């Protein structure tokens, strides 16, 4: 059994930033474990640009964004194990991992940062009827085939779901010579960023069919086509609106699930809305000394926020390793009010904040052109802020100052988001 101060599970953007930040904050003994053959995670296949607008103020591609962090990590001599898969994590922070190179490894860590990211929802998650032929891929799998392995998944393509990966792949496959027939979205609005609708669909005249879904899949060996239909307000197909579209490939871009098998094994409490661990002000889970950050906590739309969150987890782990006392200070519960789907972190101990500011990440339940975000406690209103063009697909980031949270008898924080009339009066 090996002993380590800090083990980070996952070498994507979250794991990289967490490792670097922990080292900067005085943690010397760090081991980062990555199951793939390279660092950078999904960024290595996200060859499009638009990463880093918040952190670097420039538009980088995924590999470029990753390389900046990989270079920094290497310059700090942080130990990395590649092609090594963690298969067990206990609440006592004992880790079991396997790898071709190192065999079976057992490590006792003093602190752990979970940075395993997320995986894509598949056909099984959304129960599309029909046959089960080849040619149905998640958009991210197709992205890996095209951008890393150099294979095309097909030529005549239908995409279900207008999440960002689906939109990006619509453009990517078109550039590579495929015919993307349409993007089908069950909701009356797109789940992707506006810039992606414009630059990935409109640029190439790819139709986006809102309030439509795939209701049948045809073909025996290989997919031959899909039946799509319009849906009503309760998302049920409307009889009479069915339409057959021939295709040899169906891509699914229908959402992401945080990857929390290890977290559950360690007895960490999972938030049923985010699908990730419940975390406190320093990204610590309900198991003391185990931290989590990035898409393992909740699915992000921008990598910049993953990095920020991971830096907080890295600082938090360093703080924990210095004192290693349980957070016995009072715990303020974060309450999700109307208009919001979730707020992260879910618990705050104001006295133990790692800096004088606290980031709160949240998502709205519906698009609103103008909305008022209100943060209240048992003592009354702490902060209000007007937000414009709120969309469920674009995460809201609010910063509260430490002094705003240090009221003596604070018991809870409630976040609410209410729609307001638009000042422009033209909508």
């Amino acid at each position, binding site marked *: 059994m090996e002993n380590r101060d800090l083990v980070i599970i996952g070498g994507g953007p979250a794991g990289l930033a967490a490792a670097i930040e922990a080292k900067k904050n005085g943690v010397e003994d760090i081991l980062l474990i990555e199951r793939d053959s390279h660092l950078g995670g999904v960024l290595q296949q996200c*060859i*499009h*640009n638009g990463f880093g607008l918040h952190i670097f103020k420039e538009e980088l591609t995924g590999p470029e964004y990753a390389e900046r962090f990989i270079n920094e990590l290497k310059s700090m001599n942080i130990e990395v194990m590649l092609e090594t898969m963690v298969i067990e994590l206990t609440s006592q922070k004992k880790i079991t991992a396997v790898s071709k190179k190192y065999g079976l490894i057992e490590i006792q860590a003093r602190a752990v940062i979970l940075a395993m990211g997320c995986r894509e929802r598949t056909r099984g998650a959304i129960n599309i009827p029909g046959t089960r032929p080849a040619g149905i891929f998640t958009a991210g799998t197709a992205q890996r085939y095209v951008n*890393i392995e*150099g294979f095309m998944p097909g030529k005549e393509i239908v995409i279900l779901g207008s999440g960002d990966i689906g939109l990006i792949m619509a453009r990517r496959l078109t*550039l*590579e010579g495929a015919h993307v027939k349409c993007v089908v979205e069950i909701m009356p609005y797109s789940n992707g960023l*506006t*810039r992606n609708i414009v630059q990935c669909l409109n640029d190439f005249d790819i139709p986006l069919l809102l309030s439509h879904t795939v209701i049948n899949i045809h073909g025996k060996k290989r997919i031959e086509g899909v039946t799509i239909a319009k849906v009503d307000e309760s998302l049920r197909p409307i009889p009479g609106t069915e339409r057959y579209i021939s295709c040899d490939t169906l891509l699914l871009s229908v959402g992401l699930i945080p990857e929390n098998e290890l977290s559950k094994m360690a007895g960490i409490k999972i938030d049923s809305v985010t699908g990730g661990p419940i975390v406190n002000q320093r990204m610590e889970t309900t198991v003391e000394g185990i931290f989590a950050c990035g898409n393992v906590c909740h699915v992000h739309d921008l990598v910049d926020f993953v990095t920020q969150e991971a830096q907080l987890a890295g600082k938090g782990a360093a703080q924990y390793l210095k004192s290693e006392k349980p957070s016995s200070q009072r715990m303020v519960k974060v309450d999700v009010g109307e208009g919001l789907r979730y707020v992260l972190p879910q618990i705050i101990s104001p006295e133990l904040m790692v800096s004088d500011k606290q980031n709160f990440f949240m998502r709205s339940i519906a698009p609103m052109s103008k909305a008022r975000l209100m943060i209240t406690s048992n003592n009354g209103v702490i902060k209000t802020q007007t937000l*414009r063009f709120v969309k469920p697909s674009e995460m809201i980031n609010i910063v509260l100052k430490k002094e705003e949270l240090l009221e003596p008898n604070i018991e809870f924080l409630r976040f609410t988001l209410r729609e307001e009339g638009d000042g422009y009066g033209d909508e």
Partner: protein
Amino acid sequence: MEMNKEVICIVCPRGCHIDVKLVDGKVANISGNVCQRGKTYAEAEVTNPKRVLTTTVSIIDNGNQKRLPVRTKEPIPKNLLMKAMKELKNVTVKPPVKMGDVVYKNIAGSGVDVIASKSWE
């Protein structure tokens, strides 16, 4: 000749739908934008829209053909995207390559170089 074109602005998340009126190919009127940045964006979109092209080229690694991610150093005119893809089809790079190295010069006659998005040892 008069023509109307609609542009969805991507400068900020508001996403204004901007109407651009063209007379004989020249911008005569812009409406629907809330700010000046939207006007500038819409004008460029209608007269000379540009995009950064990101794609991959072949790279030889231990005898295996793999893909090296690349991008245009600057945005290129949108109507050159497919031509640029064609030119890059037969490009093969030999490592080592450093992020930012030029792998192809003056893509599609645009005057813009294509650079590696990733280092490869």
